[in-house]
Every structure is written in structure tokens, then in C-alpha cells.
């Protein structure tokens, strides 16, 4: 028997049907976490098993898949998931945000604006935004049922009382379609505004916690805040050292043990695209430096 031992896109059809039904309900109730019978995947929890199952349920042979991990197409997690679907579904893969029809992401939203024919699939570790405030599922479920989100505002207020500002920097809670408070997965709060009124469909999969949720296109997504402490996206105050971008989300990279550091775009495709278009920063790669020094 040399026949492949797995189905197209790895999951069996019954599992795909179950996930597909959950996705439809998730889209119909924006921000609500739909329970689903998450399967064991050939990778450990924490490596994106939720996102992988959602991607497997929607992916078709005509799709072009991009996978990013913290904005990067080149890390182990991104490469292994991309290879996984190239092998099990035979889909074309890309690193260019523009060309992708399905983008699976861990903890970032691409800098390039998404368009209507794309689906963004998030890998989610803890889907319940209230979980660290209230550990009981029965209680958080009731809080969502009653739209009782005072506890979350108390948490943000305590941030202000303690630090003088809302110190939550990632997984910053949002309210979807003026009803459900939702965890945007651990994306930096810099990315929160991109979720609002986005032309692309956004799907969220949490494998270990067995939840799927969604934001339909053109849906209002508001970051929670206070009138006197409005939501502010955070970004290091520096241009990218490689492409000079002043409006992208930056990673801080320590370069030596004497306090040396550089700031570079976390979105590698965006940064490479800008460099290819002739933009450069203070620490651009050698060919540029050689040219500059004659």
C-alpha cells in the first residue's frame, strides 16, 4: 500500500464538517467562541494546532497559503506549517502578503492592508479574554451571556491606578460588533486598529482550548478604553534599521553585551518589499553600505 495515509489537508472529512459548521456559527455570531471537538494534530499544542485545523478545513487546491510567526515568514513554526500544507494539500505557498488567499498567523497582522478575497487565520493560545480574571468556565460563559464585562474594565482601571496608563501591551481586549468582548490572540495592541472594518474575513482557532471564533469583514472592532485614557497603539520610537519604515511594528534586537540594539520591522515580507523598492535604514545590509561608501 503506497497510497497516502492521510486525506487532503490532513484532516478527515467528518472532522472538517464539524469544524466547518463551527466556522459558520462563529461568523454568524461575531466574537462569540464556538466550542468544537479539536483533534490531536501532528504537532504539539502551542504550535498552532487551532489555526492549523481551521486552515485545513477551509483550504482548497486553488488557494495560495502564507504562514507567519510574529510577523516572520522564516521562523521554524511558520516554515513547518507552510511545509505541512504544501505536503498534505499540495497548495501553492508564498511569503508575499498580496498574493496569499489564506494567511495563517501567530501573533501579528501583516502591515500590508488585507483585501476582500483573503482569509486571515489566527493561532490562539487562550481564547477567553476573561480567563485570568475568572478561572471558572461556567462563570465566564455567563458573563458573556449577560454582556457583563465590568471585570475587564476594572482590570484596565487597575493598570491605570498602578502604572498611570493601561499597561496591557498585547492580547489587548476588543469589543466586536458592540456585543462580545474578545481576545485578539497575543497580537501587539499596535495591530488592534487593523481588525476594525477589515475587508478580509478573520478566523481564530484555539486547539488546546477547543474554541473557534470569527470577525466577519467590515465589522466594528473597538479596543476597550476610557474617555480620559483612550486606547493608544504602542510602537518603539525609531525607524526600522533595515528599511527605514516609520509606521511599522518593530522588533528590538540586542546586538551585543554593551547595550547595542537595533529595531527592525517584525513583518519580514513588508521590510523586504520596502528594501527591494529602494528604501533603506541606518543598518542596511552590506551591498547597500558598500555602495554608499563608494
Amino acid at each position, binding site marked *: 500500500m503506497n497510497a497516502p495515509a492521510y*486525506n*487532503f*489537508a490532513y484532516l478527515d*472529512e*467528518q472532522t*472538517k*464538517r*464539524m469544524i*466547518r*459548521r*463551527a*466556522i*459558520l*456559527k*462563529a*461568523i*454568524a*455570531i*461575531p466574537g*462569540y467562541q*464556538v*466550542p468544537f471537538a479539536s483533534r490531536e494534530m501532528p504537532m504539539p499544542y502551542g504550535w498552532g494546532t487551532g489555526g492549523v485545523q481551521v486552515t485545513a*478545513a*477551509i*483550504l*482548497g*487546491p486553488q488557494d495560495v497559503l502564507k504562514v507567519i510567526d510574529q510577523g516572520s515568514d522564516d521562523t521554524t513554526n511558520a516554515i513547518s506549517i507552510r511545509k505541512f500544507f504544501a505536503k498534505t494539500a499540495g497548495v501553492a505557498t508564498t511569503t508575499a502578503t498580496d498574493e496569499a488567499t489564506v494567511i495563517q498567523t501567530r501573533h501579528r497582522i501583516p502591515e500590508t492592508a488585507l483585501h476582500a478575497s483573503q482569509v486571515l487565520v489566527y493561532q490562539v493560545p487562550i481564547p477567553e479574554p476573561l480567563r485570568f480574571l475568572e478561572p471558572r468556565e461556567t462563570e465566564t*460563559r*455567563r458573563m*458573556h*451571556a*449577560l454582556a457583563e464585562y465590568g471585570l475587564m474594565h476594572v482590570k484596565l482601571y487597575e493598570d491605570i491606578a498602578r502604572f498611570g496608563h493601561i499597561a496591557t501591551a498585547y492580547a489587548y481586549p476588543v469589543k466586536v*460588533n458592540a*456585543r*462580545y468582548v474578545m481576545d485578539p490572540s497575543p497580537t501587539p495592541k499596535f495591530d488592534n486598529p487593523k481588525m476594525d472594518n477589515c*475587508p478580509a*474575513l478573520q478566523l481564530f482557532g484555539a486547539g488546546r482550548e477547543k474554541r473557534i471564533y*470569527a*470577525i*466577519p*469583514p*467590515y*465589522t*466594528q472592532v473597538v479596543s476597550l478604553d476610557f474617555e480620559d485614557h483612550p486606547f493608544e497603539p504602542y510602537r518603539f520610537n525609531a525607524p526600522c534599521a533595515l528599511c527605514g519604515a516609520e509606521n511599522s511594528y518593530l522588533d528590538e534586537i540586542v546586538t551585543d553585551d554593551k547595550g547595542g540594539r537595533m529595531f527592525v520591522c517584525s513583518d519580514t515580507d513588508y521590510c523586504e518589499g520596502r528594501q527591494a523598492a529602494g528604501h533603506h535604514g541606518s543598518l542596511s545590509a552590506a551591498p547597500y553600505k558598500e555602495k554608499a561608501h563608494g
Partner: protein
Amino acid sequence: MTTIAELPPGFADKVLSAQSTFRSVMDAMARPGLVQRIVPMAGAPGPMMRGTAAIALTLFDHDTPLWLDAQMAESSDVLKWLKFHTGAPVVQDSSIAAFALISDGGALPPLERFALGSSEYPDRSTTVIVQVDGLSSGRAFELRGPGIDGVATLQASIKPFDLFERLRMNEALFPRGIDVVLVADDAVVAIPRTTRVVSKGS
């Protein structure tokens, strides 16, 4: 008596056809009012349209109790086809159905009789699939809500004529509610519970 050999066939390629059909339905649900096409062909028994048949093959199985309207339930071809191809149990109690198939919209029962979900689990609600005369011409409906960039205009010949008035109960019930999928031949439009009709002309 119909034998299995005489039943209309399922998908020729059940994996890729189900995927393609699902993407059409997913896009329909994500962009209410926009007409999506279902490409893969399958046989359609009795009063069932080919779009409905494709959706059934894509989403129904032993985990999804089905409720059929009288016209569907009276067709032994439909019952046998569903049983053979999907294995989904047909139930008499519409309030426990995961999906409802309506071929005669004029006889659509009051929507409160379907599962509306609970406040804790609003997803445990019936998806009502209604076969309609047309999704390209007829009365104009202006829709607003998540998935719609401003306003979407849907032109449709729908029975029951007051479907959108009836669906206004979704407004008060939210997050509980009924999600509707309209099918006309190979065309499909979804009206999830978040969609609001703002005005309509003739």
C-alpha cells in the same frame, strides 16, 4: 421502490467538492446579501435543488439532526438520498434541529419553533435553508450589518414574502437567533442573525 443504484449520486469528488461548496457557503455567511455560486454538481432528489443538495453533502452527517418541511418529508427520494449520502437523522421536533430544509417557503413554520440557541450557547441554533424562486431579480432588499461594507442590495423572489419581517426577531434575541441560507438552483445567499433589513423597494 427505489434501490440505491437508482438514487441520484453524491459528489464525484467528495473531498474537493465539499471544500469548494463550503467556501461558497462561508463567503455567503461572511458577506450577507452577496450571491455566491455553488460549482460542484451532485444529483438532487425530488424537490431538492442542486445547491441544497451540495450543501447537504458538505455539512450534514450523523451529528446534525435535520428537520424537513412537508414537501421534503413526503418525498421518499429525499429521505433515502439524505440517509444514504449523509446519515443525518431526520427529526420531527424542529426545536432540536441543527439544520432545517424548506422547499416550500410559503409553509415556513414560525421561526420560534426552531432552535434559537441559549444565551450561554447561542451557536446551538438551527440553520434554516430555504429554497427560493430567484436570487437575481425580484424585490430589492437593503441589508446592513457585519460582513457588509455599508449597504448591500439583494434582489430576490422569496417566499414567504414577509421573511425579513419575521427575521426581525433576531434583533431582540441577539446573540440568540436564526441563521438563514437562501438557495436558488446553484446560487446561495446567507442572512446571518446579525443582518438587518433597512429598507425595501419593489
